[in-house]
């Protein structure tokens, strides 16, 4: 069954995207020189979104959607639009060299206009587990570039794999099991919801 999309009636007015469970690139400190870290599979996105006030009916629709997903059990997708989630960029890039599992850089041909730092891109098929939301960590210009990314790749991807940088989605689960529905303000219908990245 295709991944359900978070109801469009919920319009995000504030987003707090962050990567949690980070794994360092290098040794923990120069003083301790304690061992390097294994390839991380744990770096993942977390997000708190605040939505604009909506009608009571729409708010109940959103609440029903959340309840349908049984807390952290099932996944859904949410479009990450320009403005509160990411800067505006040109669409579409492809991987120009194979990328290994655990990689924190990608070789791509960056489109005209380049990628500003904070650009979000998707790699892989969102309907499968081989999918990730990635952030470009440092600005790059157009052309053949090696871009620094986070989180690290959980899977290897072959050269030629398409990556979306225009219509970008997050693949999420609700962050809490014990909240059957987001808190709805009776007077406005505004709500905020905590998401955590779905990695399967």
């Amino acid at each position, binding site marked *: 069954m295709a991944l359900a999309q978070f109801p469009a009636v919920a319009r*995000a*007015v*504030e*987003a*707090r*995207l*962050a*990567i*949690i*469970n*980070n*794994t*360092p*690139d*290098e040794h*923990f*400190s*120069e*003083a301790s020189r304690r061992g390097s*870290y294994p390839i991380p599979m744990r*770096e993942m996105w*977390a*997000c*708190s979104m*605040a939505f*604009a006030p909506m009608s009571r009916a729409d708010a109940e629709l959103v609440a029903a959607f959340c309840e349908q997903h049984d807390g952290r059990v099932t996944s859904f997708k949410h479009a990450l639009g320009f*403005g*509160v*989630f*990411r*800067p505006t960029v040109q669409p579409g890039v492809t991987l120009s060299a194979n990328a290994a599992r655990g990689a924190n850089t990608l070789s791509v041909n960056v489109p005209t206009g380049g990628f*500003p*730092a*904070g*650009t979000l891109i998707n790699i892989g098929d969102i309907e499968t587990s081989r999918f990730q939301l990635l*952030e*470009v*960590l*440092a*600005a790059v210009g157009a052309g053949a570039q090696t871009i*620094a990314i*986070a989180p690290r790749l959980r899977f290897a991807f072959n050269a030629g794999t398409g990556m979306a940088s225009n219509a970008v989605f997050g693949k999420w689960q609700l962050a809490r099991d014990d909240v059957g529905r987001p808190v709805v303000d009776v007077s406005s219908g505004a709500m905020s919801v905590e998401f955590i990245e779905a990695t399967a």
Partner: protein
Amino acid sequence: MRLQAWPAAAKITAQAFAIEAHSRGAVLPSGIGGFEIATGARFTGQVSVAPMLPNDAFAFRAFLHSLRGRGGSFMLPIGAWLEATRTGGAPTTSSLASASSAGSDTVSIALATGVTLNAGNLIVVGDPAFSGQVVRVVSVSVGATISATVRPRLRVAFGSGALVRFAGMTARCRLVGNPPAVAIAAGGRSLPLQIDIEEDY
């Protein structure tokens, strides 16, 4: 990534530093668990960042993520109010007038005319990107060559002539934990942000 420059678009509105894990640099009377001289104490603090335009905020979010939690480090600009008092275009740096050993809590500095070092000021001894260290002056003698008592104690020895910076300083810091989320709101700005940091050494 390590030794990242602090993004210019992230304007610091406030910063507060405190020293945690003070050490007397001596073995306890019981003889149990003595620390090596001055290896425990470090600065920790909070940095408040002003709201930014969205693209600056996205870039700042990427900067925080590039640190990958506690593994990365960045060079944090130190607020001007923590600098020595300078008049008449006085220099921003000086040098140690004599060598200081690891574990020492005093430094001797040859100050140029127009520079006054006060208790409460921060100074940087050595190169902060490597083994240099930020210390707070807790008391200071008067004169051209001053003797300043500092905290935390020096972690490494510095030779006579080592660079001492007392204005335009940076400290090598890292995040205390996961990067904080940068809140970006519709309407074209991010929300103010506070970051917990600690000295990276």
